[in-house]
């Protein structure tokens, strides 16, 4: 006796049978033919084919308007999409989480990040996603990061030569946040380096650096391998991150993990289906909150996503897009390459280049380390004369904003906007320009208009009064601001160890 299919599966069966009509021998069909062959009303067939088209399984022949088989989509037989040389020409790149993020991205708002299509905001407004990071927990797909595995006897020596931090002090199971510079001491990038084993590291960076790492390691016994597409990376950030991680991942002592610790674990979801999938966990993130980043093989990405989503259902977990990320990272006082500073690798003119100290990353430069790292001599000279610029936190005076908008008979129109990345001049009070504000927004959490600014070193002391140019109506005005401590928001839970997740404030 044939098993009766459960209700609601009819559409799936019809779609599959439609898809099976496409063969290498007959890769193209007309809608009417397909509908007739399957006994479907043309509008039903059209709807089902539309889904197949949206899924990338079939396409349209622009000349005939017929439906075309897209064999390279590679669905079926349990296989994942296979792409020619890792990418299909003319098609945006997808992260390994894309099928999950796409299903959730109701806003259809996407942004290109390093060539990958990433959700800008999942819902029409980024508000709830932003608050999830500070109030509950958020999942953020950060897979577009470039990832390089460095192995070999000289792996540590290579990193110690390239990086400004001291990698002889980086123990296995730790992550180091570091800068790296060119010979002139100008900042190329900042990023995290994981020490997975004694002779195995993983560098994650916003921009490519395979060539730079290889060239710096010339003659060393160290292999640099680009594993960017091999790994999916998912950030779980927010006060509830630990509770969710503990429910989703086995074999990791989350309560005992310190900030910038690294641990290996495996998925341990309740269903048990994905049990045993290995995951690397780092207690890192780009939000300044309690959080973790999970590093998995790309083929396991969806299993990781599903495990965390199930575990987070009762904790207010939401996916968060890049707009929300850009807001929280400003509150955390974290700089962004090519927004808050220009990498020396592609600064067209000399004045755009900065040293780590000038980009607010002076704490990553260890001049007391032994190795002769790239840029060292220049940075030593800088230490003697002092950096010319400084990255500062700016807080714009609320009452100044009220005053300026009052002149055009409005309340300050600065609330509810995502972070602005348009560089804006910063002035000495009533005087000359002393720098520029590169990211700014009104923090719904702090109820303050804050920004990251690069200013002349003599205008960088905490409490220094400055002025920020603001657009009031169509006019350009100056609002009083002052230099404040970065990070703007730094909850105890970010670094707390033990069961307490810490309050905020």
């Amino acid at each position, binding site marked *: 006796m044939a098993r009766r299919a459960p209700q609601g599966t009819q559409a799936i069966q019809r779609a599959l049978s439609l898809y099976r009509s496409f063969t290498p021998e007959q890769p193209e069909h007309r809608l009417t033919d397909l509908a007739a062959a399957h006994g479907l009303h043309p509008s039903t067939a059209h709807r089902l084919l539309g889904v197949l088209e949206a899924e990338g399984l079939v396409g349209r022949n622009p000349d005939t308007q017929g439906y075309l088989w897209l064999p390279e989509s590679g669905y079926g037989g349990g296989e994942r999409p296979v792409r020619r040389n890792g990418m299909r020409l003319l098609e945006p790149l997808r992260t390994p989480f894309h099928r999950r993020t796409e299903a959730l991205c109701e806003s259809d708002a996407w942004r290109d990040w390093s060539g990958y299509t990433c959700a800008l905001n999942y819902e029409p407004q980024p508000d709830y996603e932003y*608050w999830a990071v500070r109030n509950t927990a958020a999942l953020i797909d950060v897979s577009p990061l470039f990832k390089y595995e460095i192995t070999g006897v000289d792996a540590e020596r290579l990193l110690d030569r390239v990086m400004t931090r001291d990698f002889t002090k980086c123990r296995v199971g730790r992550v180091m946040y570091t800068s790296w510079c060119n010979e002139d001491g100008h900042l190329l990038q900042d990023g995290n380096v994981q020490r997975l084993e004694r002779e195995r590291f993983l560098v994650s960076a916003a921009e490519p650096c395979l060539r730079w790492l290889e060239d710096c390691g010339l003659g060393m016994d160290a292999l640099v391998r680009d594993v960017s597409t091999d790994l999916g990376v998912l950030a779980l950030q927010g006060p509830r991150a630990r509770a969710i991680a503990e429910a989703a991942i086995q074999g990791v002592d989350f309560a005992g993990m310190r900030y910038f610790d690294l641990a290996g674990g495996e998925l341990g979801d309740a269903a048990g289906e994905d049990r045993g999938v290995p995951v690397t966990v780092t207690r890192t993130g780009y939000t300044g909150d309690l959080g973790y980043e999970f590093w998995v093989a790309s083929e396991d990405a969806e299993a990781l996503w599903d495990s965390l989503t199930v575990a987070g259902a009762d904790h207010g977990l939401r996916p968060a897009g890049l707009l929300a990320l850009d807001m929280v990272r400003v509150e955390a006082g974290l700089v962004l390459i090519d927004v808050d500073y220009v990498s020396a690798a592609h600064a067209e003119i000399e004045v755009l280049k900065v040293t780590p100290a000038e980009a607010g990353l002076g704490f990553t430069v260890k001049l007391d380390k032994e190795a002769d790292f790239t840029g060292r001599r220049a940075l030593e000279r800088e230490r003697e004369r002092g950096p010319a610029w400084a990255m500062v936190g700016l807080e714009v005076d609320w009452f100044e904003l009220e005053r300026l908008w009052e002149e055009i008979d*409005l309340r*300050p*129109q600065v609330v509810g906007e995502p972070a602005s990345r348009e560089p804006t001049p910063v002035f000495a009070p009533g005087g000359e320009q002393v720098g520029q504000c590169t990211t700014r927004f009104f923090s719904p959490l702090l109820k303050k208009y804050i920004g990251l600014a690069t200013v002349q070193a003599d205008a960088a002391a905490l409490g220094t009064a400055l002025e920020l140019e603001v657009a009031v109506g169509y006019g350009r005005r100056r609002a009083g601001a002052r230099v404040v401590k970065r990070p703007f928001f730094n909850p105890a839970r970010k670094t707390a160890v033990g069961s307490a997740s810490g309050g905020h404030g």
Partner: protein
Amino acid sequence: MTEGAVGTTGTGSGGPERGSGHFDAIVVGAGHNGLVSAAYLARAGLDVVVLERAPVIGGATLSEEAFPGFRYSVFSYLVSLLRPEVIHELDLVKHGLFLVPTASTLNPLPNGDCLFRESDPQRTYHHIARHSRRDAEALSEYKLEMRRMGHLMFKLQRAAPDELAAAVAGHVGEEPDRAGSEVSAEVADIARYFLDLPKERMRSFLQMLTMSSADFLGQWFECDVLKAALSSSSIIGSFLSPRTPGSAYVLLHHYMGEVDGVYREWGFQKGGTGGVAAAIASAARGYGAEIRTDCPVARVLARDGRACGVVLANGDELTADVVVSSAAPQVSLATLLDAGDVPGGAGEALLDRAARWQSTGCAGKVNLALDGLPRFECMPDTGPHLAGGITIAPGLDYVDRAYDDAKYGGFSKRPFIDMIIPSVLDPDMAPPGKCVVSCFVQYAPYELAGTTWDEQRDAFGDAVVRTLAEYAPGIEDQVLHRQVRVPPDIESIAGIPGGNIFHGELRLSQLFLLRPDPAAAAFRTPLPGYYLCGSSTQFGGGISGGPGRLAALRILDDLKRRGAEAR
């Protein structure tokens, strides 16, 4: 301590024994406005004590774990009006202010449809257009007009028209009667501003003060469902129907939160509304204010025509240079004052007016602990619409009938309900998988005809759950615990006479310079040294902190002037 010390340093700072001592200022009541006042006074260097009759601070901003694992915001449940200057000047975020926005409003309808509004106006257009394209288009114009009206209100608040208050009050206090003298530049500015308003704006403003919200909204919209949805803010906390003249003003009062630069939306305080009071108290203590609970005040002490302290219920006396009360006028004026202490023989009349202040509570709170999220027939999934407000007000007739029940002394059989699900906004409010629901319910009159609340409390709770079940079938089976609070509870727990959440109806007869009394406008009372700072003062009502701040600034100003005169 930005303002420098004002007045004299009290002798109470050395840790006076409970129930005695001298302070620069005594604040009666530790609701949010009393605490704001205390914080500003202490911030200016004054030695301040806050005296609260209840065992806990917060007044109507109160949270409690009434059922294990579930936290209720017992009375007030959302914050939108909190003044930005209060947040900034008292650094309230540092002290724990944490407001999660509720960005949408869902109005379920009996036919299984709904009206949904989001923060994105373009998307909201399409939601409304399903019901009426004309109204969808009108909504943005309406909101613009309301923002302009709200801005006018800010102008009024900013102007702090001393002279006008003095003119209305015919002041007998330390502020000499300035009526007849030349008006200040401030008053001239505000007068100019009003005179220069476009005619249609002036007309709108006057309409707002006098019309019913149903009529006012009727000028804009054709769709009953939308009018009912928008009229919600015109009745919340007021014993009015949307068809009662004067209700349009309440619309505007609630709209001011949306106009303001800091919020423009309603926010939920993480951990419950009690967190707002806790943050303000923390700021006040940080500036050195002392807060005493379980410390009811019996009356205000006066000597030589000036307030000089208070007598506590236990008979102890505390002395102070100024006394400021955050209580409603029935308490602040009618109870705490001795008519004979009011100079000029105006005491009896003043106390009499205060006792007759219109402040009848009309709203109840039903807080529910549920086994899981409610499923609304109109949007049965558990999407982000559950993070917003959910209002049961499917039509103007529906709300008007609910009002009719109450008009004759009953609670609404099918009430107006303004609901939020705090645990969706803040999972700390309930155990994982469970949820708490906060229902603000109208109408529930303070006094029931022919019966008592003790007898009707459960029936009222049942009516609420039954009404919700019409839109969220099955919710009645999800209830694990129910807390029903009615106006007499608000009165006894929060200490607000009549249980009116605004400390008095927001109607023209009780607004502006008439709030709470023509002789006690602009925060001063006829008894020099005795001030008012609660929701029943100018621009009061809602968690704004505005009255608390303005009263404190008035006091500091008076102390400074007094100090100058003494020198």
